[in-house]
């Protein structure tokens, strides 16, 4: 083991690092950096860990909440107690998520660190605009046809398809024009799309 490696494992060094975990997370450039920071936090059995809020509903459902679920299951942080919890902000994780969303990064590191679970209950099958509601529908077990606009992020759609497939649910994406064309091919040229655009 190198001197640096030995130093990194020293309890006092790790305690010091824990006090500055926010800075470590802010500098995280890889998933391994994030893992290391979370491992540090988990070593303190007296200090609970909280996770910050993600302001974007779609990112929250698709990425942040599943990441938090994975982190809690994987690291087993200290239970809530008298001490003030350390808060893990979403930004460093979402910065890594952005690499995946740009199409540059492979999905596997992200997939390893997310746990999507059914929400319980049974949502109604529906045609909905691509949004957090569509994700909720899938997690709720609803066969979902999501209408995508040109502003949809392809990687979000890819991940949503993965989530649906993992959970054994039915999700398909169509533009409004393609859905109309499909309905007309299915039911005849007079078929008109009736759905709640949410607008």
């Amino acid at each position, binding site marked *: 083991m190198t001197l640096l490696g030995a130093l990194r494992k020293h309890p006092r060094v790790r305690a010091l690092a824990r006090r500055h975990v926010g800075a470590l997370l802010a500098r995280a450039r890889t998933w391994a950096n994030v893992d290391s920071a979370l491992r540090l936090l988990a070593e303190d059995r007296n200090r609970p860990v909280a996770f910050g809020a993600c302001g974007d509903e779609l990112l929250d459902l698709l990425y942040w909440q599943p990441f938090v679920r994975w982190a809690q299951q994987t690291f087993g942080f200290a239970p809530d107690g008298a001490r003030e919890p350390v808060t893990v902000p979403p930004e460093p994780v979402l910065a890594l998520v952005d690499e995946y969303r740009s199409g540059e990064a492979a999905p596997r590191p992200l997939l390893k660190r997310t746990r999507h679970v059914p929400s319980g209950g049974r949502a109604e099958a529906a045609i909905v605009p691509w949004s957090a509601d569509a994700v909720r529908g899938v997690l709720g077990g609803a066969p979902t046809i999501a209408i995508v606009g040109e502003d949809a992020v392809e990687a979000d759609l890819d991940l949503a398809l993965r989530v649906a497939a993992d959970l054994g649910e039915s999700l*398909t994406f169509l533009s409004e024009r393609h859905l109309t064309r499909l309905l007309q091919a299915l039911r005849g040229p007079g078929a008109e799309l009736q759905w709640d655009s949410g607008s």
Partner: protein
Amino acid sequence: MPTDHPEFVHPSQPGAAERLIAEAVESVRRAGGHAVVGPWLGEVGFEVLYWIPFLHWLFERHELDPQRVTVVSRGGAASWYEGLCGRYVDVFDHVSPDDFRRQTLELWAETGGLQKQVAVRAWDERVLDATLGEGWREGALLHPQLLYRLFRNVWQGALPIRDFLERAVHRPWRPPDPTVDLPADFTAVRFYFRDSFPDTPENRQLVHDVVGRLARRRPVVLLDTGVVVDEHVDAEPPPGEKILRPLAGVDAAHNLAAQSAAVARAQLFVGTYGGLAHLAPFYGVPTIGFASDTREINPVHLTVARRTAVVYDTPLAVVSAGAYDVLEAA
């Protein structure tokens, strides 16, 4: 598809794809531009969704002359390779479908269920000997193993999907001429059972109900030919005056050409997700593919199929029974 099969799992090395492609291109150049592409012995889905768009990219990017290329595939796939070869040779003109099926199933048993041509095996060599004679050994061989070696880590999620999409070129597909009479207006249908649409009483009932509903709107042309070359078993739709089976009895060497000709002229394709549900969007035909157990589908295929359909400006919906009901009711 068992993409967790040991032969399928390989760590991705930086620059490995470029090296594989460079080696393949160099082998063609060394052979004076002459190459054999194939033999394609696997599923229709992989052939149309991945292999052919990749070949278009490879040929265009590296300026390979298609006229010097011989493609070997099976079942009458010649029209799919338009622009990619000067000569097409069909396996079924040289190997009987029964032999083909037996050899294929034996190979799958030997390889622990691996259905993909991840290596040039003795069976591939026997097919090439039978179709081309031993002369193929003198030239370059662009074997499907190239596809699997390049993109298996995309299918495993270890590389971004972009790694395939940036090496795919989608050209217009011209339908082959029909060999049977087809109605002017019809829905093409092909249901068969597979892991993502297993043979259950519910799925049999679904096939019965969906085909019945479709036939009330316009004639249904079943694409079932009776040719069986793999483990898939056709689902039997109900009989009916407007449920036609014009392709029954088509010979094996032309069954895919006959199905392609029918699919391309349909107003709509409906069937099991996979194979022909991947093919129909290439002809601009709106497509509904059924999957009752999506856990059995590699989601990368769903993504690539969706993005490919968008390239061809064609609707593709992969649905469960519940989602189909929504389409019927929307």
